[in-house]
């Protein structure tokens, strides 16, 4: 085990220890100290993560990182066997894990600090029992689960931790469980997640049965093998041909597509993608730090992380499905955010929209950009949520933005840090330069890839949906007839060439790469794969692009309504204040929003992408938008896409300018308060209502699912009452009658007679035998002594001829 694995595992274990400590001794630790225990645990994990991060960057510089990754993949603990399949526990040690781990621990640390201040001001008693320590207890459990999820190298363990974070989310949303809306929201979140997890389990079962391993790398390897041999999951016998309509455009990939979609279902639940997005806004019922940590920064991003991890198991159709879901989510949710008045809800919908962006990016193949967006988003969204928490706390639990305004003077730090977050999420930056904040780079890149997929595809398929069987089969033919050997040179060469740009010693790296070949056992040609990947429908690109304009608008609206303008509620305004323990984390996170926009993350993600997105059927297409240290040559290796960035000039201005235009619009509308907004709302009428009611999703679910469930339950109940009970009662009556007969006739005469007879006989016999057994010790002693006396007398007189002459002990001379 290398040091890094140890550090990461230790960090996870510390959280578990902290959880148990707080669970057992939390009440004794008392109000501030329970919180500080959790903070200490988290901070130590953060320290370990920092050490790992710095060391890992050094390893990459030295070119030894890949060796460590492979070593970690080999160095696994055999936990159990499922059938013949071994289940191993191990640490997935690569750049993605390292940065995710760092991100989670870092953000969590500062949110924990914030929480100590936040919870100090909240009543923390339910029925006389303090909930303070329980809050940190749950937070520690969450940290344990999340970090475990990040470092899991096995899908099974990933799933276990996946469920654990779901549990923590449930517990924390329902933290104020004495309030109805909180407990309802918790249940809603949990049940909605169950729906997604059902799909996830489905996908896992397919991985288990067809790929035969739950190890991430192993599954990818088997997936590639089966693709090349057209066996297993790619068997043609599994094709679903429904009246001429193929589920998959490429023949033989139906089950693989189903598997990818199944795995993605989990991500849909956790990352609240359409149509399972309904739980996330309600999850804002939990304490604000929870919203910041779990429902903005880390847990909801786990869906994206999962997709990134199983990227190698996706098929083009599954990828397209992912893109479609992401696209719908990002657009629809951004529109809802415009009309929200609750500051937390507004941020929640913005989170949904951004998650949709990430998922969409994954679907497009913008692997690096999606994760980069995840990282930056985590920082600034956590910061904004904490800022909103600060505002809510300072304004005496007022969440309605319409009652705020002019808080900048009362809370300058919060206001400025919030503004930084708004700028970051809006993609603030200057086009064609390297000046900008997080969202600027990531959205730019996502949209660039989407543009490429939509317009620059060599063989664009306008009508997506797989209706053209001939084209599909042609693509499939291209894929299956593709010769690995021939392409190996090209592909390998391309890879090495690409790596030359960001690694010091290509040869060494290549050797290392060859030495632990199992990571990519079957190299494949990018070009061939891309031939199988269909083009992106153009509406998706345009949806995403429009949303890029919507996002700055509602964020600016949110910020302006909250912090600028005139105070609209004097009571709230008077009460507003900020406390150091709460704004200090904001500042730290703001600083890191800057830092992570440029340094650290981007190169590491790019490094991770080399292996993690190296799939047999789909492609990671990006990696060019960042000027340094990224494998540009990865896309160059696929020769057809060298022209990919020709449109980038247009896009750079279209995306890069969006923030300015939208900010101006928002400023104009909300400059003088709410009047203009209200007029616009009445002007749009039904559309505004539709958005305010969130497209009536809750009502639809309520009607179809809840009512449906109830109807089914009624039927079942009737069946239970009339049929099952009837059967049970009938059998009981029959048994009763039979027992009555047997009791009277058989038991009383036959059985009892036999046993009484035996008992009476043995009693008579034992009465005779037990008469000397008086139960008195002295009588027994009397008998024993009398016996001894008789024996002695017998020895003396009967055998007296030889008795007296015996010399005892005569030989005892030593």
């Amino acid at each position, binding site marked *: 085990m290398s040091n890094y694995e140890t550090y990461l595992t230790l960090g996870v274990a510390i959280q578990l220890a902290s959880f148990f400590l707080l669970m057992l001794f939390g009440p004794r630790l008392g109000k501030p100290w329970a919180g500080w225990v959790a903070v200490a645990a988290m901070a130590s994990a953060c320290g370990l993560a920092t050490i790992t991060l710095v060391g890992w960057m050094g390893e990459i510089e030295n070119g030894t990182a890949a060796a460590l990754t492979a070593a970690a993949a080999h160095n696994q603990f055999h936990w159990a066997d499922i059938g013949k399949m071994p289940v191993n526990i191990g640490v997935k040690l690569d750049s993605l894990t390292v940065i995710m781990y760092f991100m989670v621990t870092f953000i969590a640390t500062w949110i924990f600090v914030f929480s100590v201040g936040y919870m100090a001001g909240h009543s923390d008693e339910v029925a006389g029992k303090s909930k303070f320590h329980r809050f940190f207890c749950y937070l520690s459990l969450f940290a344990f689960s999340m970090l475990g999820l990040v470092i899991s190298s096995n899908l099974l363990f990933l799933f276990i931790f996946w469920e654990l974070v779901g549990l923590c989310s449930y517990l924390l949303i329902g933290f104020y469980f004495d309030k109805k809306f909180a407990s309802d929201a918790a249940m809603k979140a949990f049940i909605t997640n169950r729906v997604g997890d059902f799909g996830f389990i489905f996908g896992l079962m397919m991985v288990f049965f067809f790929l035969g391993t739950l190890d991430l790398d192993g599954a990818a390897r088997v997936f590639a093998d089966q693709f090349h041999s057209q066996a297993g999951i790619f068997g043609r016998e599994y094709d679903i041909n429904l009246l001429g309509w193929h589920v998959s455009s490429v023949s033989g990939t139906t089950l693989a597509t189903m598997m990818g979609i199944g795995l993605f279902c989990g991500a849909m639940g956790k990352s609240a993608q359409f149509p399972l997005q309904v739980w996330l806004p309600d999850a804002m019922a939990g304490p604000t730090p929870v919203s910041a940590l779990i429902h903005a920064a880390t847990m909801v991003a786990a869906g994206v992380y999962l997709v990134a991890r199983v990227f190698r198991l996706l098929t083009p159709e599954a990828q397209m499905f992912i893109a479609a879901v992401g696209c719908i989510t990002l657009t629809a949710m951004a529109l809802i955010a415009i009309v929200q008045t609750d500051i937390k809800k507004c941020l929640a919908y913005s989170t949904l929209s951004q998650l949709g962006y990430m998922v969409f990016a994954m679907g497009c193949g913008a692997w690096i950009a999606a994760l980069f967006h995840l990282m930056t988003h985590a920082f600034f969204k956590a910061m904004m949520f904490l800022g909103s928490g600060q505002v809510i706390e300072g304004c005496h639990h007022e969440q309605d933005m319409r009652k705020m305004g002019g808080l900048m003077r009362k809370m300058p730090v919060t206001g400025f840090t919030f503004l930084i977050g708004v700028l970051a999420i809006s993609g603030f930056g200057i086009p064609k330069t390297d000046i900008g904040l997080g969202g600027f780079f990531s959205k730019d890149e996502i949209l660039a890839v989407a543009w490429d997929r939509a317009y620059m595809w060599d063989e664009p398929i306008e009508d997506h949906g797989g209706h053209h069987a001939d084209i599909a089969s042609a693509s499939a033919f291209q894929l299956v007839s593709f010769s690995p050997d021939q392409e190996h040179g090209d592909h390998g060469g391309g890879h090495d060439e690409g790596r030359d740009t960001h690694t010091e010693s290509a040869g060494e790296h290549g050797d290392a790469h060859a030495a632990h070949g199992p990571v990519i056992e079957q190299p494949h040609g990018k070009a061939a794969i891309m031939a199988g990947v269909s083009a992106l429908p153009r509406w998706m690109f345009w949806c995403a692009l429009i949303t890029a304009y919507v996002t700055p608008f509602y964020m600016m609206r949110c910020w302006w309504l909250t912090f600028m303008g005139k105070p609209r509620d004097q009571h709230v305004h008077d009460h507003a204040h900020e406390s150091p323990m709460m704004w200090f984390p904001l500042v730290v996170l703001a600083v890191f929003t800057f830092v992570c926009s440029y340094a650290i993350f981007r190169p590491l993600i790019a490094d991770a992408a080399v292996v993690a997105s190296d799939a047999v059927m789909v492609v990671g297409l990006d990696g060019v938008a960042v000027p340094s240290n990224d494998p540009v040559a990865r896309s160059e290796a696929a020769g057809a896409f060298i022209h990919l960035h020709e449109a980038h000039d247009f896009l750079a201005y279209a995306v890069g300018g969006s923030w300015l235009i939208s900010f101006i619009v928002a400023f104009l509308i909300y400059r003088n308060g709410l009047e203009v907004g209200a007029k616009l709302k009445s002007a749009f009428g039904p559309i505004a209502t539709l958005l305010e009611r969130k497209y009536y999703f809750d009502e639809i679910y309520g009607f179809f699912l809840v009512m449906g469930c109830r109807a089914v339950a009624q039927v079942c109940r009737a069946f239970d009452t009339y049929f099952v009970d009837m059967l049970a009662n009938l059998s009981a009556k029959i048994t009763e009658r039979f027992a009555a007969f047997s009791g009277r006739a058989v038991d009383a005469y036959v059985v009892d007679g036999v046993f009484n007879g035996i008992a009476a006989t043995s009693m008579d016999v034992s009465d005779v035998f037990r008469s000397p057994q008086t139960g008195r010790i002295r*009588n027994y002693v009397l008998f024993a*002594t009398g016996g*001894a006396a008789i024996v002695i*007398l017998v020895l*003396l007189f009967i055998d007296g001829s030889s*008795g007296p002459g015996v*010399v005892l002990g005569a030989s005892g001379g030593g």
Partner: protein
Amino acid sequence: MKTLMRYDKTILAGLLLAAMACCSASAVAQDYPDPKERPERVVEGEAVPQDAYRSEVTPVVESVLFYIFGGALLLSAVGLCICRDVVRMATCLFFTLGSAAVLYLLLGAFFLGAIQLIVYAGGTLILLVFGVMLTNKSPWVRFDCKPAEMIAAAGVAIVLFFGLATMLTTTEWAQSTGEARSTTVAQFGKALLTTYLVPFEVASVMLLVVMIAAAYMARQE
């Protein structure tokens, strides 16, 4: 003289006890002939020269003491048989055990005699008295068995004694002609930690078990 008469029994008993005390002390006769000739303290269980510790108890003195304390022992043992009251029985037992301790001293087992006194007389007896004290509220403090049982028991005991006595007197025992060997504590300790180590350890473990068991059984619910 009236006062003297009143106290005669008391004073006589006191004198008798004092005399017993003196005699028992002289039975412990063990002296160094001269302090300058005192042997070095026994280290590492070296064999002690037999003449370094000489008993001053001549056979005649030993016999006299044996008859005195043997008689006391028998008397108190018979008293134990006869007494009905438990505390009187305990007193008799005490004198029996004390006399037995003096007999050990006579036989040269000084350490054993002292141990007998401290363990039996000091410990066992106090335990017994404890038991008596804790149970003397009972209305059945004096309960006798049936006369028939008594007679049968006496008969069996007498027959057993005569059988044993006959056997013991008719057996020729191999005897040493030497004097009583006094055993020093150092020899005892050495033997316990070498030859008899296993029984010693077993006994210690058993004592622990007994301690726990007794505490457990006598605990308050």
